[in-house]
């Protein structure tokens, strides 16, 4: 169960403080200090600390709310770092992929991080301080830096950390998918061609209906993975969700851009901040094929006659 008060107030503050200008600035490589301060002032960065009373369900609900606004700060990373390291002061702790030779890649805002967690697909977790940083970005222009680290310490948390990080992308995608669907529905009602709103055309209606169905599936898949936190099936539920949400993202982005026409293809329009993130997040912490393969190998090992039971009795 999630605390709807926390989630509602987070959604409101995110909506009030994040706008096109903030997104553009962040994409130019400047950390959005004011936005991050607003997040921290309200304590959202401390959510789901062991003594906070909030759980991982709340954490992912807030991450989804952040996805709805394309919030250009490493909120999920900071929240999970707090959970795994304990909160220690004001510095930003980010989470990327631990690599050999002391170079950790895909570190969100590694350039301003005071400490960095590095994760592997085998659920190993390490912590280190950055020594040097090469700036990088994903296709959405979100800071994804390569960080050279010195002394590396292992961190034992006893949680499937890689799947938990993958779920952060799933939940954020669910939020972004809801947002782009709303944008498509609103635009179709406003934009007139041939003397009527384009929402009146059956071809447009069907495109949006299909997108709505995919969004609903993505949200249910994401929620199901969150509901599985702490259970034996958690990593497999994340696998199913990462696969399903990634597939939905491709279909929905295509449909919503088509509805928007050329204006949605401009940099000036806000749509691409969401659609590029949806594309980029598919690849982060394991692409669809990685998770599909893990899930498929497990099912194959159970055998054909156990397939139904696997689907029907998830707990």
């Amino acid at each position, binding site marked *: 169960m999630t605390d709807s008060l926390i989630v509602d107030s987070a959604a409101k503050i995110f909506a009030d403080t994040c706008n096109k200008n903030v997104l553009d600035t962040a994409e130019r490589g400047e950390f959005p200090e004011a936005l991050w301060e607003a997040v921290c002032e309200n304590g959202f960065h401390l959510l789901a600390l062991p003594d906070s009373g909030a759980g991982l369900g709340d954490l992912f609900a807030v991450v989804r709310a952040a996805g709805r606004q394309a919030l250009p700060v490493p909120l999920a990373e900071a929240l999970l770092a707090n959970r795994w390291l304990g909160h220690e002061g004001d510095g930003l702790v980010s989470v990327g992929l631990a690599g050999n030779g002391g170079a950790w890649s895909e570190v969100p805002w590694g350039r301003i991080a005071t400490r960095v967690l590095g994760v592997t697909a085998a659920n190993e977790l390490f912590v280190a301080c950055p020594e040097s940083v090469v700036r990088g970005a994903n296709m959405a222009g979100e800071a994804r830096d390569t960080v050279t680290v010195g002394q590396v310490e292992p961190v034992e948390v006893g949680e499937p950390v890689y799947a938990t990080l993958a779920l952060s992308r799933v939940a954020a995608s669910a939020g972004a998918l809801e947002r782009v669907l709303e944008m498509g529905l609103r635009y179709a009602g406003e934009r007139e061609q041939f003397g009527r709103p384009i929402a009146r055309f059956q071809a*447009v209606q069907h495109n949006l209906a299909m997108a709505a169905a995919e969004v609903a599936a993505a949200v249910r898949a994401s929620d199901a993975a969150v509901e599985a936190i702490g259970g034996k099936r958690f990593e497999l539920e994340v696998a199913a969700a990462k696969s399903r949400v990634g597939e939905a993202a491709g279909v929905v982005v295509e449909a919503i851009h088509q509805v928007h026409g050329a204006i949605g293809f401009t940099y000036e329009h806000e749509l691409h901040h969401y659609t590029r993130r949806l594309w980029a997040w598919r690849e982060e912490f394991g692409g669809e094929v990685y998770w599909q393969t893990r899930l498929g190998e497990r099912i*194959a090992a159970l055998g054909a006659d156990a397939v139904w039971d696997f689907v029907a009795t998830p707990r």
Partner: protein
Amino acid sequence: MLRFDGVTLPDNAADLRREVRAFLENYDGKLPRPNSDFGSGYDPEFSARLGERGWIGMTWPEAYGGGGRSFFERYVVTEELLAAGAPVVAHWIADRQSGPLLLRYGTEAQRREYLPRITQGRCFFSIGMSEPNSGSDLASVRTTANAVEGGWLLNGTKLWTSGAHLNHYMVALVRTEPRGENRHAGLSQFIVDLKGPGIEVRPIRNMAGDEDFNEVVFTDALVPPENLVGEAGNGWEQVTSELGYERSGPERYLSAFRVYVEFVRACGGSPGSSQAAAIGRIAGHLMTLRRMSMSVAGMLESGASPNVEAALVKELGNNFEKLMPELARLALPPEAHSAGFREAYADTLLHSPSFTLRGGTREILRGVIARGLGLR
């Protein structure tokens, strides 16, 4: 925004599931069939045995032979039957749709007449909606019922009526008043005895080689007055109220399930990576669809009329039923097709064009969803 909340099955679901599986294991008929499609596998003996177990009309009041159980319990039984490839089609429509219709709109006499027999698996219904020139445009039906002494005289033709050559009754949607300004007005539903005089049933062979659907011709077929369902003229409201039941169940995404089972079997315990990915991709769809479909069962349980949500689940489920055999085929080279896979795949593929037609075409469903989104 449309919501599909998570639902948790009641505590007794696990026991019920075990009971159904044990029943299927001990059934002496041939199981599983090569496909898990609810639309084929007509076996009145199997239906009667299910009736003995109390697994037909499960949610109906006990006074009418029902089980007084929840939609979730019904869900468990139906999904287990479909996944196992059980022959459910004989009682399927009566259990899913005709019975609930009579419970909601039927007279007390109708409920006492039909519902107990349906729950015993001895009374089977067809849906009389489509006509030669009325498919998706259901309000354009032209079959008429005229009030005469002793009842109503039916004239016209119903088409694509599944099971009419085998079932006992049809619930027919007909015009009782000439079509006026409001095209949804003047429609009524009748229970029609398919073995009665003035009714001719002609099976139509489908592309899979089966005789399932029919043409049903009414020529001055007399229907007694007590067979009117609900109010004369209220047929449109009544017929649309059936759609939540008709469109959201496990039968809307499990038609191709046996293909998946045989695909996994053919891949073996250590599949190649592209095969494993296909198995996993399909599972992601299946797990999500089941949860969405159960979410609609929860809406039905709470007394809501989730017609838009049901249309959405059917749209996604039907797309999946067509996608899945294709993913399996492409991941399995022809020389690796086992006899079991070949049989399930061919049987499912040959029926697959009907998946996005029956129970509301894809185009109609998208229209329903679009209306729910406020686009029309």
